[in-house]
């Protein structure tokens, strides 16, 4: 019941928003709803630790299983382990920050907040689902609102971007759906099929079925996680989206993909994961390097961050593809870290854009002097992105490198080295961007009178920075949270490989 609250609460808040009048009420209700979620997520963390401390070694805690549609064996089966819990925490952080940065959303505010809340309900539901159909249901729930958010409240070529994003993500979910169906029809419990993640994981699915459906599921989820070459929705989608939607998109949606790749594709089809691992490594290494180099040439701040997201999400897939426990843990860490970092980045860019009405680096300049707070936030996000110790990005990337290096294959080593090289390129583009847009003399004298961040923006940035620093300075708590989950996955993969 505790877990179901995470779906019910955003839905209730969304419903309440519909009955509000005016921006003030709407945002108050949304803030209250998301704050309660935020507190709940910490409550959940506490409960989780209490349960673990009392010696509960079960893979999933707080499980609940109710039949949803019996003829097809679709169940509402939910439960969490450390991986999903860290994703829930991430969602809670990003959602509350997203609501705070949209504080002055004037046009169609009710609908805007409604969609944001629906999206968050979808994300929460996705992360707690243990039933593949339920999982898919929530995945779709999290996709649809984005189309509207970008199409209605976006900027630039928003219709094009919204359409592109929706079509590509829909294609992704279609592939996912085929993959899930393939899994479903290859399971059997007393002649019946099963959607249940836990049950499937205990079954032996034939190699041929795995090899057929793994690519479908992995590419499908991979599209969400900006798998090369299906990443092109990322730059356009992010740059056209309104600030909060960009934050959700990069902070949460891309994580849906990474989580799916890990939890569904890799966990349920370990042999195929092993079989296709070279391909995954190849694609993700290309994404990392190529994304980083492509970022170097961008001039729009949002494009810079979007392309760098391609590069950073490449690390997630690299970690998953390397199939060692440390690298997979690193992948999860990277998901959390990138979620917080990129949300912070987009928040800062949004704040800059709302003041200067431009995002082009050469038109900006000298902002550090006039809006020091926002600029500092931007710099912190940038530093996290380039992997500064003390911030979360470093921990995640180093864990991935460390884990990848444990794979003794020469080619995998080469991939690791190339991935490491990207930290240099990252430094180049981040520093160029900050140098051009924040430092130097002020080109445009209208900027002399810009107002620095308001309380809502400070609070939003503060929440995200707290998360980033908490992981960066003391990574062990998150690490211990994640490790039991990845242990199950890696045992499963290891068993499958040795069986061969």
């Amino acid at each position, binding site marked *: 019941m505790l877990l179901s609250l995470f779906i019910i609460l955003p839905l209730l808040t969304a419903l309440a928003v519909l009955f509000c009048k005016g921006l003030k009420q709407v945002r108050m209700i949304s803030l209250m709803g998301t704050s309660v979620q935020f507190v709940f997520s910490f409550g959940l963390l506490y409960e989780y630790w209490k349960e673990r401390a009392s010696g509960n070694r079960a893979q999933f805690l707080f499980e609940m299983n109710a039949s949803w549609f019996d003829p097809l064996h679709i169940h509402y089966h939910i439960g969490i382990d450390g991986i999903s819990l860290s994703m829930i925490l991430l969602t809670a952080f990003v959602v509350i920050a997203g609501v705070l940065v949209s504080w002055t959303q004037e046009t169609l505010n009710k609908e805007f907040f409604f969609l944001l809340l629906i999206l968050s309900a979808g994300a929460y539901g996705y992360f707690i689902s243990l039933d593949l159909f339920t999982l898919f249901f929530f995945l779709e729930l999290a996709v649809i609102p984005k189309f509207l958010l970008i199409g209605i409240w976006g900027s630039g070529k928003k219709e094009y971007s919204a359409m592109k994003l929706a079509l590509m993500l829909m294609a992704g979910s279609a592939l996912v759906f085929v993959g899930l169906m393939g899994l479903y029809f290859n399971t059997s419990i007393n002649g019946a099929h099963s959607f249940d993640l836990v049950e499937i994981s205990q079954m032996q699915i034939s190699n041929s079925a795995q090899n057929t459906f793994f690519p479908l599921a992995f590419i499908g989820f991979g599209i969400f996680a900006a798998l090369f070459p299906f990443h092109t929705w990322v730059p356009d989608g992010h740059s056209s989206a309104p600030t909060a939607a960009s934050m959700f998109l990069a902070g949460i949606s891309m994580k849906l993909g990474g989580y799916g790749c890990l939890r569904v594709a890799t966990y349920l089809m370990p042999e195929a994961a092993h079989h296709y691992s070279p391909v995954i490594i190849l694609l993700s290494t290309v994404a990392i390097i190529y994304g980083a180099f492509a970022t*170097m040439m961008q001039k729009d701040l949002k494009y810079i961050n979007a392309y760098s997201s391609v590069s950073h999400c490449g690390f997630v897939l690299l970690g998953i593809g390397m199939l060692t426990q440390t690298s997979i843990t690193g992948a999860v860490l990277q998901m959390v870290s990138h979620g917080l970092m990129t949300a912070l980045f987009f928040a800062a860019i949004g704040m800059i854009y709302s003041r200067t009405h431009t995002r082009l680096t050469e038109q900006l300049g000298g902002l550090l*002097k006039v809006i020091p707070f926002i600029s500092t936030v931007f710099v912190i996000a940038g530093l996290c992105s380039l992997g500064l110790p003390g911030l979360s990005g470093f*921990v995640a990337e180093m864990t991935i490198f460390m884990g990848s290096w*444990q794979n003794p294959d020469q080619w995998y080593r080469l991939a690791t080295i190339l991935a490491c090289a990207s930290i240099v390129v990252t430094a180049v583009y981040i520093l160029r961007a900050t*140098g051009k847009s*924040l430092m130097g003399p002020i080109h445009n004298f209208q900027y002399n009178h810009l107002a620095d961040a308001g309380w809502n923006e400070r609070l939003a940035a503060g929440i995200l920075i707290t998360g980033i620093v908490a992981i960066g300075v003391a990574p*062990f708590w998150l690490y211990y949270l994640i490790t039991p989950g990845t242990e199950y996955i890696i045992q499963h993969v290891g068993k499958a490989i040795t069986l061969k």
Partner: protein
Amino acid sequence: MSPYFFVMLVPLLPLVSFCILGLFGRKYIKTTSGTLGVISLFISALLSLYTAYRYFFIDGKVNGIYQHIIALKYTWLQFSPRVSIDMGILLDPISVMMIVIVSFISLMVHIFSLGYMKGEERFAIYYAFLSLFTFSMLGLVLSSNIFQIYIFWELVGISSFLLIGFYFENPSAVTASNKAFIVTRFADFGFLIGILILAFYSGTLDFGTLIERLTTAGSSQYIDIHSATFLGASMLTWGLGLVFIGGAGKSAMFPLHIWLPDAMEGPTPVSALIHAATMVVAGVFLVARLFPVFSIDLTVLQIVTWVGAFSALFAAVVACTQTDIKRVLAFSTMSQIGFMMFSLGVSKYGGESGLGYTGSMFHLFTHAFFKSLLFLGAGAVIHFAHTNDIRDLGGLRKLMPVTHLSFLIACLAIAGIPPFSGFFSKEDILMAAYHSDKIIYAIAVLTSALTAFYMFRLYYSVFWKRDIHLHDKNHEEGTLSMRLTLVILAVCTAFAGFVPVSSWITSDGAPLESHIDIVFSVFPVLMALTGIGLATYLYKTENRRPQIITSAFGSLYRAAYRKFYIDELYLFITRKIIFNGIGRPAAWFDKNIVDGFMNGLATTTAKISGLIKGLQSGKVQNYALYFFGGIIALAVLFIYVLNY
């Protein structure tokens, strides 16, 4: 709990002051922020002095050998059951020496900056950054784990970046800070891969265990790392070589030195602290920290030696031609670090043959004092005269007596004139080089002569050359805090050579007999005196001799003045090859090929639907006709063709 638990406070105090100043400095404690920084550093410096006293005189030594003491160890990130990043404090002779240097020099710079940065708008932020740097540097030298050192390594890099770019409204400062960060980042990439290699083969990240495993001949890790080869070199060579690249980047060794001269864009006290006395010796420290492992791989030691020696000579030649007071000092720093580096390279592990190691650390110790003194003196000059260019300076000796005298002491020290500190440390280095490799020795002596020459060129150009008279009587020689710092450092510079470093800091922990070989030192000192004499002849008074010499050297002079075009080469590589050759095509490829393909899919779909939409004519009767025709066709199909 270890009796050295309190050492934890040494790095933590600056961290606390960073947090306080960074969060509240801007608004609430703007004016007192300097005092706060100074106080925290003062306590920190006292604690490190106490640590040094206790370590060297009371309980550091067991059976005549200085021990490695783990004062604190805390698992920070557990990668796998055996491999973890620990946050720890490792006390051994070099780390104890380093915390004393770092906290002391940092304290000096903090005090100096009270006067130098007075009236600066971002005063609090400046002190916050200084504290951040001090914290990171102290953490770096105390690291007990190779990954911990990497963490602080990066933090040091970022604080250096922040401080170089402190005057961020000045575009050249921004460029310089970016350059410094990116170049060192590139080197760190090598360092990281090196760590990965070493950690993989040794199965640990902990310094003590790592060194023990990799140096014990016959241990499985030792055999593994020696037998695994890649491109003809063993993995040990690769690992250490890559780690050395990291060190070379931070220590501005050729060819990764290009960031150091530009780093002088930062405030001068910062240059004194970071780019002269502490951060740039991190590379030397790193090699020294892993020295037992380095010493079993002669290939890497050769690389270290030659890179160090070449950088020393190269930088000395360039320094002779520079006209910016801070750039001369920057190249001299690079040259001196080259000394420390090759001294490590020629050293062996243990006993008398470990003299190079001792000499290197000794030089690091004395260099910290005289180089920070030189930079702070230069800072005082710049503060006074508002120019960096030695062609515009001259005759300041009467106007700035304190600065003049302390600068002179520092110049004598760096030139290696007895009894100033530089003489003793340089003597050890030269001795080690002499016993190891005569060519290196020749380079070293030549370089030290050049050092004497360019330092006194600088000295005469700034303080002699011509007499100037200022009409403005209010012009004072800096504030009290500035002069005080100069005096303290001058005293240290003069007497640091008498510290018995060789009995404390040796490669294996056992004390070394210190001895000064009078006969041996005659030649180097004579060379240095020749250099000084030449500088006196050319630069003491304003004359045309320098021009004649420069034109005689012609293209060599120009090349040296342009720093042998290394910067241009880098610029070419980054601008032309990386940006235009890789970045732009990648962006183009993404926009046109990958995205073009996706858009192509969409447009193809749209085109096909455009082709077939003509069927949808809107005429109901047509639809009915198609429908009816379809039914007939199906009926025919089922009845006559499929025979149902």
